[in-house]
């Protein structure tokens, strides 16, 4: 049986599934329920500085995007950091950590861009016994208007400076939570690293408007006739988050820096994918908010089963295994030629592949009078769209042409497998070196 325990920057937890800093981790009551359900750790909902607590709107805080049968695909929120008194949270953190010493309890923090403010709150957190801190440089709504959250995360210089203060005033492991609302995620990650951060976590929520009420002509969630952008999360953001994790994991300046993955993780498989790309653990919010805490049982059993099947005895066996396979377009093998193939036994003759290819792509699928669909190898560019729109899994597959076979579309004879040609060796590359370019006689 696979060992799911993880050690993330010295913080141990019985499994890699943590609840992200969000409403599920706002109170002792919730966190105790989460730990009873089996969560490996929590990042406590963001604490602010001492003083009158923040206030939230009293209308709807969430907006949603649905798939079929109201399956929640994306959630947007305009909730701020904790609106409970600082001391209340600190007392609860201390009690919970004492009762669950084997679980990870990390405290999320967001205070103004002022060293003294950070020093003060770090002193208080240090007394709780918490395992670490996460710096919330990500929330894109509300607090950003006050110079915190993503307003910090979008300026690498601020990220670095605050991280330095935190490391100076606290011995706790420090995770910097990054905002995706930036053009190059690597820059704040590098700033965090240079500031001394032990890890980054990503992604925080994405600036978003989930829907517009066409009767009221107002974005939703609607607060008395007005709406504002919120932070988007849930399954819909996973592809964006995975790319950002991979960017940081593979960039030489940031490679090796521990990453805590966040962004639409709903199942064990999602978590495994993020971890394969280099994340050390997985933080979850929307899935728990949709289905409750019990989902962690599926996550643990699924990850464990898959690890057993693959022969991984511990999570570190597969963390980062896919990172080296993330590359730039220019390094892709242009002599790798595939053609779509339709399994006529599986085909249900819906014709979606035909419509997609005929209307929007390469006219590479033929349709007979009796609704038999076949691929025209001399037109197929192997774009994969037919595979993606086909409702039957496994019905359309891509067959790789073998060395010596002729690509009927280009006339090229497929070279031996080790005889690869990327854009860098392609004769059409104006920046290529004519002496090393390889022509296939097309």
């Amino acid at each position, binding site marked *: 049986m696979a060992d799911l325990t993880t050690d993330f920057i010295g913080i141990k937890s019985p499994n890699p599934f943590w609840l992200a800093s969000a409403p599920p981790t706002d109170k002792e009551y919730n966190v105790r329920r989460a730990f009873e359900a089996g969560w490996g750790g929590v990042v406590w909902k963001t604490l602010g500085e001492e003083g009158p607590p923040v206030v939230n709107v009293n209308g709807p805080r969430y907006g949603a995007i649905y798939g079929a049968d109201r399956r929640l695909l994306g959630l947007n929120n305009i909730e701020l950091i904790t609106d409970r008194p600082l001391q209340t949270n600190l007392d609860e953190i201390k009690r919970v950590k004492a009762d669950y010493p084997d679980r990870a309890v990390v405290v999320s923090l967001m205070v103004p861009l002022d060293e003294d403010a950070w020093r003060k709150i770090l002193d208080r957190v240090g007394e709780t016994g918490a395992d670490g801190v996460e710096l919330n440089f990500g929330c894109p709504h509300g607090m950003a208007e006050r110079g915190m959250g993503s307003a910090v995360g979008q300026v690498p210089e601020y990220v670095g400076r605050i991280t330095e203060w935190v490391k100076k005033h606290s011995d706790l492991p420090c995770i910097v939570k990054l905002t995706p609302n930036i053009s190059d995620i690597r820059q704040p990650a590098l700033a965090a690293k240079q500031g001394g951060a032990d890890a980054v976590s990503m992604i925080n929520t994405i600036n978003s408007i989930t829907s517009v009420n066409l009767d009221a002509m107002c974005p939703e969630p609607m607060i008395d006739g007005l709406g504002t952008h919120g932070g988007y999360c849930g399954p819909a953001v996973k592809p964006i988050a995975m790319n950002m994790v991979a960017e940081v994991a593979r960039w030489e300046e940031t490679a090796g820096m521990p990453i805590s993955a966040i962004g639409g993780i709903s199942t064990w498989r999602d978590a495994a994918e993020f971890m394969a790309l280099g994340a050390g653990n997985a933080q979850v919010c929307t899935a728990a908010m949709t289905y409750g805490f019990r989902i962690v049982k599926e996550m643990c059993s699924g990850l464990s089963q898959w690890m057993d099947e693959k022969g991984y005895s511990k999570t570190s066996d597969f963390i980062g295994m896919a990172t080296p396979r993330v590359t730039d377009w220019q390094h892709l093998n242009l002599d790798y030629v595939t053609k779509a193939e339709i399994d006529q036994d599986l085909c249900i003759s819906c014709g*979606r592949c035909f419509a997609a290819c005929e209307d929007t792509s390469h006219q590479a699928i033929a349709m007979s009078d009796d609704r038999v669909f076949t691929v025209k190898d001399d037109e197929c560019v192997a774009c994969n769209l037919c595979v993606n729109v086909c409702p039957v899994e496994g019905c359309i597959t891509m067959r790789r042409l073998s060395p010596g076979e002729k690509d009927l579309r280009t006339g090229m004879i497929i070279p031996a497998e080790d005889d690869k040609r990327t854009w860098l060796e392609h004769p059409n590359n104006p920046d290529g070196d004519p002496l090393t370019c390889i022509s296939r006689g097309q």
Partner: protein
Amino acid sequence: MTNSPQTPGVVAERLQATVLAENFADLHPPLDAHEAQVAADRCYFCHDAPCMEACPTDIDIPLFIRQIMTGTPEAAAKTILDQNILGGMCARVCPTETLCEEVCVREVAEGEPVQIGRLQRYATDTLMGANVHPFKRAEPTGKRVAVVGAGPAGLAAAHRLAMYGHDVVIHDAKPKPGGLNEYGIASYKTVENFAAREVDWLMQIGGITMETGKTLGEDITLDGLASDFDAVFLGIGLGNTNALGIDGEDLSGVVDAVKFIADLRQTDDLTDLPVGRNVVVIGGGMTAIDAAVQSKLLGAENVTLVYRRSQDKMPASEYEQQLAQSKGVHIIPGVAPVSLKGEGHVAAIELAYTDENAKPTGETFTLPADQVFKAIGQAFEEVAGLDTDGRKIKVTDAGRTSRDGVWAGGDCTAGEDLTVVAVAEGRDAAEDIHASLMG
């Protein structure tokens, strides 16, 4: 309550009124908005969709389902009604399991088609529930068209002609319009007086006058109509029923299934309707199934449906057969009636096993029967002055008969005797009439 399913003879009130009401409730309750969304989401929006090809009225099914999915069932209804003005009724009575849903790629792939019929009902009910009539009558043309028969073919023709600005007079022998929609379809398929409500809704186009109680050959004649109107459309259906031609057919208790179904549809109180303890239905089509199922629902103790060929040859769809069996109807295929026995009133039916050619083998058996419904097909009544194809009115192209200026469609012409086919024929004849009148 004095009677029960075991009470001998043909009696009313075998079941309590509450049970009867439950038995005759909507066979397929309407989808609610969320159910419709979920059902619509299963549609793959096929290219040149097989369902559309299978629909006799060529409704763009993937389009209307997508319109439901995007929250515009009213637009979906318009898509349906553009092709089939009786789309509401067809959603209820079409044998979708042998038409659109049979060829749905999800039926082929998973044995579970998209619920096209119920989605069509959701769309049309939404629009009709709001009493919206999304068609506008064109400027009057001054042309007058007579329609004979207010069934699906006649109504479809009349609506299309009225929409083009022609003045239409519909004549029907029965006291109410609707034809078989009103008189011939099982109650649980068209509850809450839907047939009549649909006619009222259809008439909102304007320019249609309804003349009920007018029988062709008695109150009106084809010659008369031909001289008084610019064109005539006949959608007169099949006036007669086929006879068994066996001993005892004239015993009381031996009745046409269509009569029983019509009585059932027109009754105000199901507890008033007598039904036998031992009911035998002869035939294998939809009418036979409808009569058998409704006998059972009325409280008959034993209902047996006898059909002379093997069960797989029954014209009623497999779904209909299963429906009957699930309600407790006993289907005996491969038997033919030999004689009906009884003193004044039928008491038993003698049946013979048949061979693969449906010919009696000689081996017989007898079933008790105090009520026998004949459902072996309706018969065509000839119309003076029109050629027939041997069985029905002969038509070419879009319903042109052998007489100039006279068109025909629906059950009185060749083609499957289905509501949806009648609508298509009425619609297409109307298009042809319009082209002829304005040409």
